């Protein structure tokens, strides 16, 4: 392992700047008011670049220490990020949904044994061991939540979005699902049944959304491109393609 003198000065400077923040990981939480938290969520939401925060510096310093000690290989971290940015994400679930829309036999298998049917398309593994697929219809709307933490079907949807893990969604999805849906822009008639699925144990849920009108001539691939993450959690409907007669 290289000694201190071999390291670029910039890194030493960076680490000393970050050190106070690292200590804060143990000493005191990064206190933020709910207003600040929401402001931050909104900022992220709008894609604004924030200045490096305390927590960013602390994470960077922790990585440096563990890498220096040989306890972590930064290439492993790169591979984890790459996995969730390009391999394991909601496009996988979108392919499952599109297949179910075009292939009635597959749809039947998917609703009967989600894990096996999702496995047919090559998706499975951690947090997808026991999958149940629930189908939206004109009479039934399904919504998935994990009130106790952040359980989510990784193989088909990837890592959960921030809102799914946040207090506002987790607290209200079970007591006011229709209000939550309105917040996402979906207004349901009173005679539509809302079924909420609280992922309390080892089962993970995928919502099979309704196929929008005007998509009869679309290919499976084109259909998959219409399917959104939010629709597969049940907080949105799949929008009809532009120009389609609704």
């Amino acid at each position, binding site marked *: 392992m290289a000694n201190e003198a071999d390291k670029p000065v910039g890194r030493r400077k960076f680490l000393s700047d970050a050190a106070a923040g690292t200590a804060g990981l143990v000493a005191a939480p990064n206190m933020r008011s709910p207003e600040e938290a929401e402001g931050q969520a909104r900022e992220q939401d709008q894609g604004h670049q924030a200045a490096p925060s305390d927590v960013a510096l602390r*994470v960077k310093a922790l990585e440096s220490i563990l890498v220096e000690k040989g306890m*972590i290989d930064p290439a492993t971290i790169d591979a984890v990020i790459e996995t969730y940015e390009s391999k394991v994400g909601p496009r996988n679930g979108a392919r499952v949904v599109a297949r179910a829309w075009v292939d009635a036999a597959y749809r039947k298998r998917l609703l009967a044994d989600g894990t096996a049917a999702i496995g047919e398309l090559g998706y499975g593994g951690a947090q997808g061991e026991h999958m149940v697929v629930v189908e939206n219809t004109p009479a039934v709307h399904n919504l998935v939540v994990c009130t106790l933490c952040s359980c989510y079907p990784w193989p088909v949807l990837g890592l959960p979005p921030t809102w799914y893990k946040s207090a506002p969604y987790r607290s209200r999805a079970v007591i006011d699902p229709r209000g939550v849906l309105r917040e996402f822009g979906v207004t349901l008639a009173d005679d539509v049944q809302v079924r909420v699925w609280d992922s309390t144990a080892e089962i993970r849920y995928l919502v099979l959304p309704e196929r929008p009108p005007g998509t009869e001539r679309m290919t499976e691939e084109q259909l998959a491109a219409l399917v959104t993450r939010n629709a597969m959690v049940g907080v949105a409907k799949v929008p009809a393609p532009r120009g389609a007669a609704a």
Partner: protein
Amino acid sequence: MNGIHDMGGMHGMGPIAVREDERPFHAEWEGRAWGLIRAAGPFGPARRRNFRYEHEILPPAQYLQMQYYERFIKLLVDRLIAAKLLTQAELDSGRADQASPKFTPRVTPANVAEQLARRRSLRRDDLRIAPRFRVGQGVRARNINPVGHTRLPRYMRGHRGTIVADHGIFDFQDTDAEGYTLPDRPQHVYTVSFSARELWGETANARDTVHAELWEEYLERA
């Protein structure tokens, strides 16, 4: 435990950030943090406290104020310090002390893909235990208030529901008061459907339902 994490049914948590795009990470540090957590892999003693319990015992104000990946990183640091694999002096200086203990990573660039994809099923297909309940039967979620980790949310306790599926036998995940998993209690896990009116009263839509998977010992005959 009746902690801040068990938030189903609470009011006043504010609006939902509904416009978030589909990227998994919205800042570089979030990806690095998640990568660190997965790359650290298993280390330290084999008998470890339940990780979810460790989140649940955070002081409520801290739990609510910390960002998600920040919370995970804090708990990783706590575990590393408890296992004596990281010292306060290292954190204070931001530099590794080469004399302090280390571990050899079990997750490496060569096996990370396999590690990330690994199934971790708690289902015990090797066991045969007769179910106490059958699909269609009325049940009541027991009124229990365990101080350890539990998967029975507060908002369901004492309420009547109906068994709609039996998922087979799973290892029980509740812990003792110190956060250690209770051993040898595999049992059936059922999906139970509750009417929204049963849970929330007359203002709820009469058609709406809330489902959860509940271990057998959370339930009694109704």
